[in-house]
């Protein structure tokens, strides 16, 4: 089944399409997945059919991309998605205790969402914040040179 391409979304799709040379319409798969996810918070299988129809590629190609790339998710997440880097430079500067602190403070494990839907906690790989480790993202925003106290402050200020 295909989701409905709303006029607002169509306008955004058209603007993205205008950026690319005409012969490169296949390149629209990732930008349109990003665009859809930004608009509604997640992308469903139905959305991939809608995107595929817009571009004129097999739905399977969009669905495959949606499932293969880690940044796309098929279901709503918490209002704030907290993504803590667990890779080497952050691990050397204390990300493990940061993750433990977040789990305890939010009362959830990595991969879970708080019952009030406010926070989703995730671990991610290197965010290129190695010089300012340890680091995390909340939504798109980077927070760096963290410790437990700073994390508490950041969480407290979020709606």
């Amino acid at each position, binding site marked *: 089944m295909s989701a409905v391409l709303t006029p607002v979304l169509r306008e955004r799709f058209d603007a993205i399409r205008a950026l690319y040379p005409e012969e490169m319409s296949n390149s629209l*798969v990732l930008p349109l997945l*990003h665009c859809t996810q930004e608009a509604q918070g997640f992308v469903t299988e139905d959305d991939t059919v809608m995107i595929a129809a817009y571009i004129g590629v097999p739905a399977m190609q969009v669905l495959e991309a949606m499932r293969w790339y880690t940044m796309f998710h098929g279901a709503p997440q918490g209002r704030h998605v907290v993504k803590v880097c667990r890779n080497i430079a952050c691990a*050397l500067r204390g990300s493990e205790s940061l993750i433990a602190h977040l789990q305890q403070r939010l009362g959830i494990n990595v991969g879970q969402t708080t019952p009030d839907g406010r926070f989703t906690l995730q671990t991610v*790989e290197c965010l290129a914040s190695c*010089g300012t480790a340890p680091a995390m993202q909340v939504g798109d925003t*980077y927070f760096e040179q963290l410790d437990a106290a700073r994390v508490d402050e950041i969480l407290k200020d979020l709606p």
Partner: protein
Amino acid sequence: MKSDRVFQSFPVTADTHTLDAYRARGGYGGLTKALTAMQPLEVEQQVAASGLQGRGGAGFGVGQKWSFVSKKSPVVYLCCNADEGEPGTFKDRWILEHSPHQLLEGMLLASYALRVRHAFVYIRGEFDLPLRRLQGALQEARAAGLVGERILGTDFSCDIVIHRGAGAYVCGEESSLLNSLEGKKGYPRNKPPFPAIKGLYQRPTVVNNVETLSAVPWIIVNGGPAYAAMGVKKNPGTRLFGLSGHVDRPGIYERPTGYPLKKLLFEDAGGVLGGKALKAVIPGGSSTPILTAAEAEHLTLDAEALSKAGSMLGSGAIIVIAEGTCMVRLLQVLTRFYSHESCGQCTPCREGTDWMNRILQRILAGQGTAADLVSLQEIPQAIMGKTICALGDAASMPVLSFIKKFGPEFQHYIEHGRSVHDGRLTV
């Protein structure tokens, strides 16, 4: 403006990323010079004469890469690889945040040399400020007639498109990047054909790293030979070295190639965190073989010296590890990463990275056996050289080098079920 700094030649302030600030420090002088006084081939020749090598990790000669592109092809693409994801690496981010116009100018110069009409920046999807800075710079450049139709009133037209990735380390591999840019999952391609022959949509395509392209304006302004005169002869120029881990003042340090590691670490960056002794360094991003403090003692930071020491200069990302760090746990951080990021196309890498990670997990759980240590040395042999892209090698080299250099720590963990240290990764 002649300076021995290609990047860090200005103090970073709140507006160093803007067009005005870039122009005030001589920005777009290289583009003006090339479009008014140089033929495309001359631009290519200057870059070849500079001896510039790729800064993404592989270190391939840029002039050579460009020379592979057919001058007769009606369509040639340029892709800037801004999918910075090699753990420990954060130098491209420095350029994107503080001097994004320098990248745009470098891309325009490369496009002029290679007769590119459409150029792309493939930027990693997680980047926030770097993306916004680059988008802002591109808007400014378009409005100023520096990108688009008839640039600076000449016949040269070139558009630049910013394309976001979506969270896949493997897409930093150039052929995987091209597949991703074509809207597919990022499986690396078999080579040959190399991208310069058949790349994006089967057209000749040059893929260069952010730092690589951003060095081109300096080369055009000052001349290839001036660039070749910096650093060591065989891989000249400067590098944006990124120091991270157990170092007092982590950050990006631009230094000429051949700079002594100890000078960089102890004099420029304040030494090891907490005054601890140095245990080891990973010299060029997490994939490059680890070196002990003794091996690092007289090391200079150039490709040849690193190769002699049994490692690689890679992306210039130096990860510092202090005495007292548990190497078994640290290695598992890396095996977890590579098993997570293996794209799954080649069996040896898909299965091998997962096996290595599970074995290390078992050792960390106190259930390791002597045979595990043998397996950890055998599995990489079954991966390396047997995969389509370099991720298999990248996943294998840390395992082999950690065990070779710190074998007794692994044996101790297996025999006693616990770390020879207290198991900590932090100082």
